[in-house]
């Protein structure tokens, strides 16, 4: 790992542009994401917030033919210009998706999946699995059936298992793409409480289409519209005193 100056941010993004073919979806975004905070990305559907999130672990380049330019500084490197090993990047930056989709394997296997490829010794894996499941506040609910299929869990438990799966490679950063949109209200509360606890150890970047969720659990909020960053501020300030008319229109429910 390159040792740069000790950085007090998780990401520094400058003039980020992303296109799918001729269609540009991110139009020059500057944003700094602080460590050990929950940063929420909000905006109407199609505003580019999910694409932006997928750029932060390079997934946008892996799963589609997108092209990008600008700067995403992570861990002392600009991952757009310099060669960043996707294995290392994704060990340090975990990701949780919209739909809870555990692998069709046992609960234990799901959590052990990441550590296995990152060179963790076999004898250390059981301890990592237990600790990670505890971190995801799932261990007590599943400790008697670790070796049963993960698909037997409830939707909320499955999503917390997916969070555990992402935590098991001991990342610093967790990217979450609308992690509660497929969950019922009770499971949503459980996952939100978990996110609040996670920020002690992790930096969380959360895409959400629920403004209330951003207001409840995030420290900073970025408002995206048509691939541009309209406003970025501390969450209280952004919701109570939006500087931009567009932000105000969106958070007061006039569109979107």
């Amino acid at each position, binding site marked *: 790992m390159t040792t740069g100056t000790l950085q007090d941010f998780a990401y520094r993004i400058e003039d980020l542009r992303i296109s799918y073919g001729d269609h540009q979806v991110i139009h020059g975004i500057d944003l700094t994401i602080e460590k050990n905070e929950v940063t929420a990305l909000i905006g109407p559907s199609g505003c580019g917030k999910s694409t932006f999130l997928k750029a932060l*672990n390079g*997934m946008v380049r*892996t*799963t589609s033919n997108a092209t990008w330019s600008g700067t995403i500084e992570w861990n002392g490197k600009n991952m757009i210009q310099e060669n960043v090993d*996707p*294995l*290392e*990047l*994704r*060990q340090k930056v*975990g*990701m949780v*998706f*919209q*739909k809870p*989709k*555990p*692998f*069709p*394997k046992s609960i234990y296997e799901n959590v052990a*999946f*990441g550590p296995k*490829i*990152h060179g963790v010794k076999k004898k250390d894996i059981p301890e990592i699995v237990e600790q990670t499941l505890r971190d995801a506040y799932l261990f007590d609910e599943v400790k008697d059936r670790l070796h*049963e*299929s993960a*698909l*037997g869990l409830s939707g909320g438990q499955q999503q917390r298992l*997916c969070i555990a*799966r*992402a935590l098991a*490679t001991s990342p610093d950063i967790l990217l979450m793409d609308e992690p509660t949109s497929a969950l019922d209200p009770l499971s949503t509360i459980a996952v939100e409480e978990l996110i609040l606890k996670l920020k002690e150890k992790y930096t969380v970047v959360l895409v959400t289409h629920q403004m209330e969720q951003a207001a409840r659990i995030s420290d900073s909020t970025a408002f995206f519209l048509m691939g541009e960053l309209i406003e970025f501020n501390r969450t209280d300030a952004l919701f109570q005193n939006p500087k931009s008319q567009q932000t105000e229109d969106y958070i007061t429910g006039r569109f979107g």
Partner: protein
Amino acid sequence: MQRRKLADKTATVVLTMFAAIIVIILTALLGYVLSLGIQQVNWDFLTSKSSSFRAGGGIQDQLFNSFYILLWTMIFTIPLGLAGGIYMAEYAKDNRITAFIRICIETLASLPSIVLGMFGLLIFVNATGMGYSILAGALTLTIFNLPIMIRTCENALRAVPLELKEGGLALGYTHWRTITTVLLPSAFPSILTGIILSCGLVFGEAAALLYSAGMTTPKLDFGNLNPFASDSPLNIMRPAETLSVHIWKVNSEGIIPDLRDVADGGAAVLVTVILIFNISARVFGSWLHKKLTAK
């Protein structure tokens, strides 16, 4: 309103009728073949050699040949089909070359099997000089079966939810490792079902084998397991008449007095084996699916 209800009812009745017709045809056919043949089938029939002139011959060698050619066909087809399916589902870009490959696969799938048999005769039997043999037959059947296998594997892989693939990639797995550790295990039940179903298809195929595996079987010594001996059943360079080819041959040019009985019995055995393949594909596939998804 009244008319729409009527149309809905008519559609239901008509479609149910068509389904019923299919079931009736199948049961009638199976009933006919089995009722004629089942009385001929006994342990002796299954385990004695066929006879060229006298009555009372069995189908032992032919039955073995059918399974043995099936085995070699699958040894060739499964890796090729998997590789093709993985390529088409995961690596092929959406461009003209892929469209061309797709047309090739579809054309191959719609070629009459007798044409494939002639191809096998020209290429495997004659051009390579291997003669009528199990190997030539299995290679011909591989061409026959490959398009189905590629499509089965491709569809099975495409049916895996995208989130699972992304889940693997997001943990730092490479594309290839994601395919082997996430996609293939998830697609395995459908792939296995497809393989067993195509076993039934291959097992019953006759036309492609007439001029590739041949219509005769040398004297076999089932005690000789040296695969290079000419009288060993395991030798893949020997000609091998399969069960379906045998039924065709006995019926069309047989001179044994009990040829009807042998053909009927052979057909009953053939149909039963294919039925077992089809039913086990369903049972085994859904059992595996349940086991893997714990639902």
